[in-house]
């Protein structure tokens, strides 16, 4: 049994992230722990794996026990043989170039015999249903494949407990379903599994217990009701509105790999579109092309009556803006305020009025008092709100959002939704990449579903979701990988 007794931790010595927390998990049990952003879920995981107090500074007290033996004093490498942690971003946890090397990495460190390593590699890859990855290069794997590889490389060290931090954030609904099965298999091998997850619906069905972490304590409360956004019925949409953005026969390839295959669509003023599909189906690339950031190999895009190719980067930025997946990739300035006014400066729109608007925009995003802070020091949710608020200050007509809800708590999701409504109500359009069927059915008036770079379905949310159920994409209608 893995057990936390009277665990207290604070990074700065004043705010308690964990407050005399008690918690147990048995071998062969799956426990899901939820909680809002910043509630200390990842901190708890780091305490269990010894990174706190060994490599992360802070005020730590209490103990972690495995079968009544205190492990807090053991070195990390010793703890790691019993408790393994799969972190949020699979990409940055892989340290070798070939999948089999990655799985062998752990046992190699413990000087296991080559023969035994070879058996461990095979069995670990098999346990995550990925034997076919054996000699693949790690950098060309998909997000889901990378995550399965990391899980395999952790289980190759034969831990008794496995902790996963936000595993659904890099997965599409199919990946979530697959991971559920893998976790169940690990449970059957008598491994204790702790899933730390924002999105309750992703793993609730396989959990033996669901717990909430709030105010530094573990509680058994059902959080489902508090997670929901205010219900708003999407506005009836007239398809007599004029076309704002039209794409004809778009094609795009990276090298030999065709990513966008003959995409044609017209978007009318005021439309809110949910863009869905498997990871790797070309959603992000399509946004990049529509945003004028990537040039299609063939095909045309028109903004009202002007072909996008005839506009320069600044003219496009005036009308079309995009928010990318990783907030860190789109922050450029040293203070929140400078970041907020960056676009005004780039487009020569700085004036008394526009600066005043920036001021109130920061207020709306709930980060006004952080004006002089370095934006990189904000939390993930705050960074995302800054990303959104800083690109829409000049009232662009087209807003492109790439998975904006990942890692966002209720407040962040509300803010993004309000921004979308604001833009579309004054005649703009919003195109949102998401895996969340709840969001699309509540707020979108159209859903486009992509498969292998082409549009598979395009229509009203209700009819598209209904159709998905009948054509082997059922997961997309119920998992809601992102709440």
């Amino acid at each position, binding site marked *: 049994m893995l057990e936390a007794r009277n665990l207290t931790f604070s990074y700065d010595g004043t705010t308690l992230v964990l407050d005399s927390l008690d918690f147990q998990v048995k071998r062969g049990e799956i426990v899901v722990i939820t909680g809002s952003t910043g509630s200390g879920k990842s901190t708890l995981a780091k305490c269990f794996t010894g990174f706190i107090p060994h490599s992360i500074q802070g005020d730590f007290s209490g103990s972690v026990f495995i079968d009544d033996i205190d492990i807090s004093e053991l070195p990390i490498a010793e703890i790691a043989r019993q408790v393994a942690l799969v972190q*949020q971003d699979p*990409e*940055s946890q892989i*340290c070798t170039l070939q999948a089999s090397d990655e799985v062998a990495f752990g046992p190699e460190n413990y*000087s296991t015999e080559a023969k035994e390593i070879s058996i461990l590699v095979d069995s670990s890859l098999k346990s995550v249903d990925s034997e076919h990855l054996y000699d693949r290069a790690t950098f060309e794997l998909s997000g889901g494949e990378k995550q399965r590889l990391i899980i395999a490389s952790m289980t190759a060290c034969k831990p008794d407990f496995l902790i996963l931090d936000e595993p659904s954030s890099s997965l599409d609904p199919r990946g979530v379903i697959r991971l559920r099965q893998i976790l169940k298999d690990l449970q059957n091998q008598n491994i204790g599994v702790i899933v730390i997850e924002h999105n309750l619906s992703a793993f609730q069905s396989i959990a033996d217990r669901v717990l909430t972490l709030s105010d530094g304590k573990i509680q058994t409360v059902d959080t489902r009701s508090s997670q929901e956004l205010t219900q708003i019925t999407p506005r009836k949409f007239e398809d007599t509105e004029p076309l704002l953005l039209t794409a004809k026969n778009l094609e795009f390839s990276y090298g030999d790999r065709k990513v966008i295959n003959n995409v044609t669509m017209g978007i009318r003023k005021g439309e809110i579109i949910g863009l869905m599909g498997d990871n790797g189906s070309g959603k992000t690339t399509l946004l990049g092309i529509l945003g004028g950031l990537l040039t299609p190999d063939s095909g045309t895009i028109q903004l009202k009556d002007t072909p996008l190719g005839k506009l320069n980067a600044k003219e496009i930025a*005036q009308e079309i803006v995009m928010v990318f997946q990783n907030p860190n990739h789109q922050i*450029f300035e040293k203070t929140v305020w400078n970041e907020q006014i960056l676009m005004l400066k*780039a487009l020569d729109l700085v004036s008394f009025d526009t600066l005043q608007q920036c001021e109130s925009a920061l207020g709306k995003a709930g980060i006004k008092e952080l004006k002089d802070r370095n934006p990189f020091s904000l939390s993930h949710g705050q960074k995302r709100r800054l990303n959104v608020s800083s690109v829409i200050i000049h009232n662009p007509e087209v807003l492109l959002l790439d998975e904006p809800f990942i890692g966002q708590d209720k407040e962040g999701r509300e803010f993004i939704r309000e921004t979308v409504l604001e833009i579309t109500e004054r005649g703009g359009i919003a195109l949102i990449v998401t895996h969340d069927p709840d969001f699309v059915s509540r707020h979108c008036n159209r859903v486009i579903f992509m498969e292998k770079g082409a549009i598979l379905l395009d229509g009203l949310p209700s009819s598209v979701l209904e159709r998905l159920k009948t054509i082997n994409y059922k997961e997309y209608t119920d998992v809601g990988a992102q709440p």
Partner: protein
Amino acid sequence: MVGIIVYPSWKLSIVLLFIVFIEFRVAKVSIRLTKGRTKFIVIFSVLLLLVQVLVTTNGVLLGFIIPQIGGFGPLFPITDFGLVRGLAISSRFLLLVFSSMLFVSVTDPTLLAHSLTRLRIPYRYSFSLVIALRFLPLFDLENHTVRMAQKSRGITAEVTSLSKIIRTVQYTFFPLLVSALSRVDSLSMSMDGRGFGYSADRSYLRKSSWSVSDTIVTALTICFLVVCLFLAAGYLPEISSFLT
């Protein structure tokens, strides 16, 4: 490679360059794969050649780049010495770059790390090489994303003044650095969490092995290096008169 630094001769470099291209063929590594980069390298070497030709003014005069037109010119004399020096430098540059490219594309870094450990280099150091290679393609990708994000904000790369150049660099460098640092944290946790550094020795699943052909290649390289050293010291006047 060391040989050509010891004994700079453009004829020898070109012969070696030719051998490297044959090796590319034998190893079935396509040079076209990195087309954009190859183009850049070749253009850069031509520039090197031109600069050398322009700045070297002693030697036998061969002509002028801008001939005499009326009272204007002649400008930029071309001399045989300049040409030879330019060729020597640019061919050496090409040789170094292409042979390194060949080395990277035919070497499995995991095996290289293992062989370095066999040379008694601590595995912590040999692994840093593997990790560097692992994250290179990722930074390439992130750089691409950051540039797209800049473009979507209406930021264009401006090089008209020093402050603008600094700003352009900052806008690319900051996001990449922050993302790299957060990756470092997560990577070190992931490696520590799998017992990296547990003991002074570690075992290896895949090991590099030494074969007869390795011995032959090593012997040949050493012979070649010795010849170059002799050439540089002036012990082999017949060969060096042929090469210069």
